[in-house]
């Protein structure tokens, strides 16, 4: 019965993607070209990694608004380390460490000290943006990029997939194991749905919340690493473009599949990236994209939220 419902949801999702793709294809046949699909998958990789990290925080029913700022700082840390001659694995480790530290700070402030998550993460995100200016007074960094090997992260292929997409798939696989097959994930869902009962079941709720924030920060910095690798330069505004699409992907996915999960987030990301890519092909100016993403997000939540649809049926009944 339950798998039946999942099947229906998958079917609805596939139909939705097909309709969107068909519309774009009818406007511009280049939409389904091999080159464009690869571009779409690259775009999806960056957004998807950030959204996967955010998924953990949403599962424990918190918010993280700091990850775009943290990602910017991660990008600048990466750029600075490469520019100063560090080997690129060390530079990437440095970037991820930034995400990890900020995530741990966020999680500790929220879970241990009970600070409100939204305000706290806005503040830590602002702090991270401030720090990101220290390296170069805000100018973008691209020295040594060609020599360092970081560009391979973007250009190489792995098992026939572009490297960024392969990294997304590997990260998604690991995230799925953690969230859906481990006691950590079970504890996270229990914590998110009912903090008190989770505590009464002996689940270390605070530790899991800290872990969720840590994963979110780290994965945002991994996402930004791919973006830096593809653009060949690190700049202080890099992270800003992660915020809306990540939230949209998680919520759209959760709306489509009934709850936040790794699969739902990937589905949400695919839809967001498809739309953004399509609008780019149709030469709709990029500054509209945030507006489009936001509209889709609100529409999706409204259509799929069970309480809202329940309300609509009650209204209809009352009207009848």
């Amino acid at each position: 019965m339950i798998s039946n419902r999942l099947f229906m949801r998958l079917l609805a999702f596939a139909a939705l993607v097909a309709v969107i793709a068909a519309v774009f294809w009818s406007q511009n046949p280049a939409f389904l070209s091999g080159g464009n699909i690869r571009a779409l998958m690259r775009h999806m990789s960056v957004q998807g990694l950030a959204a996967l990290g955010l998924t953990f925080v949403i599962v424990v029913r918190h918010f993280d608004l700091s990850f775009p700022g943290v990602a910017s700082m991660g990008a600048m840390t990466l750029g600075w380390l490469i520019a100063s001659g560090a080997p690129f694995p060390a530079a990437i480790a440095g970037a991820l460490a930034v995400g990890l530290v900020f995530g741990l700070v966020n999680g500790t402030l929220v879970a241990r000290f009970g600070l409100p998550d939204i305000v706290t993460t806005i503040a830590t995100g602002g702090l991270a943006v401030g720090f990101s200016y220290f390296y170069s007074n805000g100018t973008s960094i691209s020295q040594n990029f060609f020599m360092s090997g970081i560009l391979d992260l973007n250009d190489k292929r792995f098992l026939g997939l572009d490297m960024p997409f392969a990294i997304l798939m590997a990260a998604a696989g690991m995230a799925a194991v953690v969230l859906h097959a481990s006691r950590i994930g079970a504890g996270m869902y229990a914590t998110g749905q009912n903090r008190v009962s989770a505590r009464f079941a002996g689940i270390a709720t605070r530790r899991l919340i800290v872990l969720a924030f840590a994963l979110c920060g780290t994965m945002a910095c991994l996402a930004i690493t791919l973006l830096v690798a593809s653009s060949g330069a690190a700049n202080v505004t890099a992270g800003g473009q992660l915020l809306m699409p990540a939230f949209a992907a998680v919520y759209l996915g959760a709306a489509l599949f009934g709850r936040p999960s790794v699969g739902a987030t990937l589905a949400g990301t695919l839809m967001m990236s498809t739309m953004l890519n399509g609008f780019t092909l149709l030469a709709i100016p990029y500054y509209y994209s945030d507006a489009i993403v936001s509209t889709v997000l609100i529409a999706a939540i409204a259509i799929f939220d069970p309480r809202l649809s329940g309300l609509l049926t009650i209204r209809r009944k009352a009207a009848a």
Partner: protein
Amino acid sequence: MASGTRTVLDMRGIEKRFGDVKALGNVDFDLDAGEIHALLGVNGAGKSTLIKILSGVYTKDGGSILIGGVQHDLGTPRAAIEAGIAVVQQHPELVGDLTGAENIFLGHEGARPGLFGRIDRSGIAARAEALLSRFPIQIDLSRRVADMPAVDREIVAILHALRLENTRILILDEPTSTLTEREKASLFSMMRMLRAAGIAIVYITHRLEEVFEIADRFTVFRGGRNVACHTVTEARDKAISIPVLMLGTGEGLTFPPRMGRADGDVVLEAEGLTAAGFANVGLTARKGEILGIFGLVGSGVDELSKALFGAIPSTGTLRLEGRDVRFRSPADALKAGIFLVPGDRRAEGLTLDENVIFNTVAANMSRASLGGLMRFGANRRAARELAQMVDLQPMRLDRALRGFSGGNQQKVVIARGLYRQAKCYIFVEPTVGVDIGARSRIYALMREISKDAAVIVMSSDCDEVHGVADRTLALYKGRPIEGATDRDQLLHAGIMGGIAA
């Protein structure tokens, strides 16, 4: 009171189902103008479902409702208010920082138009005066509600419900539960005045002695049906027993036989245990027996259970199998071998959106996982075995807990405890919202568990404590009272704070 002459409410054949659970089946209920009508029944008998239908919170599945002779559907709270029905909740939600008068007209301040329109304070005062002239009650409505005694807050809530001229039916949900005897008397005098003004009052209470003191008629609910409706005079003349009506005789509770031994190993011992809500409690729980603790709501039983489980801090001595222990969190207590079946299973005991398997293994993740990964197959098998043992109905392991009745949700909490394999089980209000069939099963399970572990049962249901426990203790206002030898003494100890002569 002349009854049957001016019927204001006539409900016929009301039906209501929640999923597989029939909450109300073919229920009739009527009210006369100017009567106080007590609505009685044990938890889960269907009283609150009826009230929620009457106040438009739930929609009925079948039946008809006539108010003042006119057919009403009452699909929404607004429709109920327009039909003249007002409800005062058990714990009325008032704004402490506003005065009594401001609370009464909250949302109807009669402000000048516009968001920043000044609130018409003199107008409110005048309307409050007008209300008080209709219902002459001694109360100072210009005081802040936070500074008022409990009974005045109750009166403010009632006046709030009566602020509309057309209110004909007033529903009071356990208004006396937080009042002292003196306060109760002044509430009752207000109720008599409202009755004289022609308002029909539905009065829900668990204190049966109040029925004879204030009510004209009473209706008893049992298992989602209206089983009796009598006038108080009639009941007094014919010596009708309300408890028998409430509990029923045919399908009475069956308690499992006692074990009759008190020589098991001591598992949990407390001495001078003190926390917010209770003080200086000593108790001993032995393997092979059930220790029962009777205490009303607010007596400290809930706090005591949480202190034993490490969920709230406490001082005093706690010994587990002879060794001093101190639990700083429920995780500590679980590790040591204590399991709590909490009083509020929906808020504290379960993850309602997850399925039976998840909820069964949740309190013992180390057993449910191997190297950090969940053992899906083994967990399903264990959950099925335990679900069969607790007799889960229906046997749907993949269904979210939200889809089960209260009794079956409780069985899953017990299955979770069994999966944990604890040394001492603490049950708090184990059968609230549990139907009679499931209750007997739960009592039998407790007895079963007590063969291998110590069991402590804490409840505000004296018959439950007396029926299921080998030894009993009462808690009155946070103070333990020992020495009750029979049910009546235990009841007296928990309600009055002493042993009756």
